[in-house]
């Protein structure tokens, strides 16, 4: 089990070895966001700005105008909290900067709400020109980093997790930036997930399979631009749909899916996530259970509400 933030750190180091235009900025969270390996190897291309995320974003904007490929990182909550700076200094001018927001969702547990990225997808996807990606495993993060390294169409929000996650089998679909990855084919319902909850999606599918229900499982590593085609075609929407995310149900994956299906063929979408509330300090397992983001709780809801 390895975390997606670990993969980010490893991929960044590898990228730094290949390309000398890669420059990394930190706001006093280099260890936590795993940019410290890069810092050690390439001190001349590592800029520590201190606890000053807005300044970090602006500096990256200026650097990107001069042939540098900046990667900036902090906790998702803190960095997307500087929304206006990201909007005006990165998104509006389409500056090719990768904004890595770690400690997504509730996994940090005992530190509590102020340290958790719970609305970061909602904020970032609302910005034109902003690509939003959220790999679900260590391996998928490496693939994502390779793909976004050469993307210079604008800024990218890369959502990462703190906690080690199982290296689940993501199926035979190759990774393609901008496309949904079909992890499993099924015929009775669809589970759509994004980020570090892939193992929960697989666990739900497994339980349902034992009850004779097969689930189509879709991994949305690219939240924006969203691959509506794969969800809707080739055989139409396989309803009902359950979305799973470690994020608010306001404006995240659930909202994206509901948006898409509503426009083509209105379908029941059950959204699993943090239901428009802030989260208490606590053991992550307790928090996930309390907010219904566990295999048991999701299966219970599918049975009682979707009657499957």
């Amino acid at each position, binding site marked *: 089990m390895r975390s997606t933030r670990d993969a980010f750190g490893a991929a960044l180091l590898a990228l730094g070895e290949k390309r000398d235009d890669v420059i990394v900025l930190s706001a006093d969270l280099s260890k936590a966001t795993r940019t410290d390996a890069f810092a050690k190897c390439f001190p001349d291309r590592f800029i520590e700005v*201190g606890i*000053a995320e*807005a*300044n*970090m974003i602006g500096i990256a904007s*200026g*650097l990107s105008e001069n042939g*540098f490929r900046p990667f900036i990182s902090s906790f998702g909550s803190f960095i997307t909290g500087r929304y206006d700076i990201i909007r005006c200094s990165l998104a509006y001018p389409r500056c090719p900067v990768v904004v890595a927001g770690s400690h997504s969702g509730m996994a940090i547990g005992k530190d509590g709400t102020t340290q958790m990225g719970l609305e970061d997808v909602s904020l970032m996807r609302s910005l034109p020109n902003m690509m939003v990606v959220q790999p679900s495993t260590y391996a998928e993060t490496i693939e994502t980093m390779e793909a976004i390294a050469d993307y210079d169409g604008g800024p990218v929000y890369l959502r990462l997790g703190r906690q080690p996650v199982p290296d689940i089998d993501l199926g035979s679909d190759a990774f393609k930036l901008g496309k949904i990855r079909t992890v499993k084919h099924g015929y009775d319902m669809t589970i759509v997930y994004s980020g570090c909850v892939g193992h929960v999606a697989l666990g739900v599918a497994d339980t349902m399979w034992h009850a004779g229900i097969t689930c189509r499982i879709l991994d949305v590593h690219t939240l924006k631009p969203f691959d509506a085609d794969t969800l809707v075609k080739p055989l139409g929407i396989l309803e009902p749909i359950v979305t799973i995310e470690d994020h608010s149900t306001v404006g995240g994956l659930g909202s994206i899916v509901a948006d898409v299906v509503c426009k083509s063929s209105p379908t029941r979408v059950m959204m699993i996530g943090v239901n428009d509330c802030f989260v208490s300090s606590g053991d992550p397992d307790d928090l996930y259970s309390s907010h219904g983001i566990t295999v048991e709780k999701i299966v219970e809801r599918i049975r009682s509400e979707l009657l499957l």
Partner: protein
Amino acid sequence: MRLEPNKLRAHVIDMVFAAGSGHIGGSFSIAEIIACLFSEFDLVSDRQQRDKLILSKGHAIPIVYAALHELGLLEADELTTFRQMGSRLQGHPDHRVLPLLDATTGSLGQGLSIAIGHALALKLHATSGQCGTVFCIMGDGEMQEGQVWEAAMFAPKYGLDNLVCIVDANGSQNDGLVKDTLDIGDVCSKFRSFGWLADEIDGNDTIAVTKALHVSPSGCPRCIVANTTKGAGVSFMQDTSWHARVPTDEERRAALLELGCGQ
């Protein structure tokens, strides 16, 4: 080629009048600074180490458009498209639609950080000691934004002596005088305490401005607090109403006459 501040002011009047909106007061206060920058420094060539201008107080962009026109880089026709849909001359600087500009700004407080990014890049790319200078023009009201102080704290860390922050201290902001809204105090001594070199000048005196801009780099970033008059150049445009006020046709003619550019 020497640009004339009053000619720039005249273009600003025409642009704002044609558009029906725009910021005359804060554009006028930096006319001498802009005239000097575009006359004395290489802000528009293709050289990698050319000088840069980040207009952090982006609402003053009309005076920059005026300077670009006087340099022959923008046609007179195009000036009349200021603020129209699809125009390259957006209401606040957009350097994607007008690549002659170095940054997209308008939400106050962000430009100094962007300027630092440019200055740092120029330093990192500089091979033979020759390094472009990055000028960042900020408003005094703008100094109330927190991000400005993040940037101010940071710049000396990397010895960015190719960074010059010019504070247009015209004493006035959107809703009134700076000192009544939120007094920013002694900006020079604040910047000095952060590790910058800092000086105050008369920002509407061309000679003082030229002298201040040509100081050689010496290991730290520099702050120039330019004491200016909002609406300088036209006698009746110097009260606090001219932050975003549009002249009537009569006022326009009277202003152009005062600027020596009337018909």
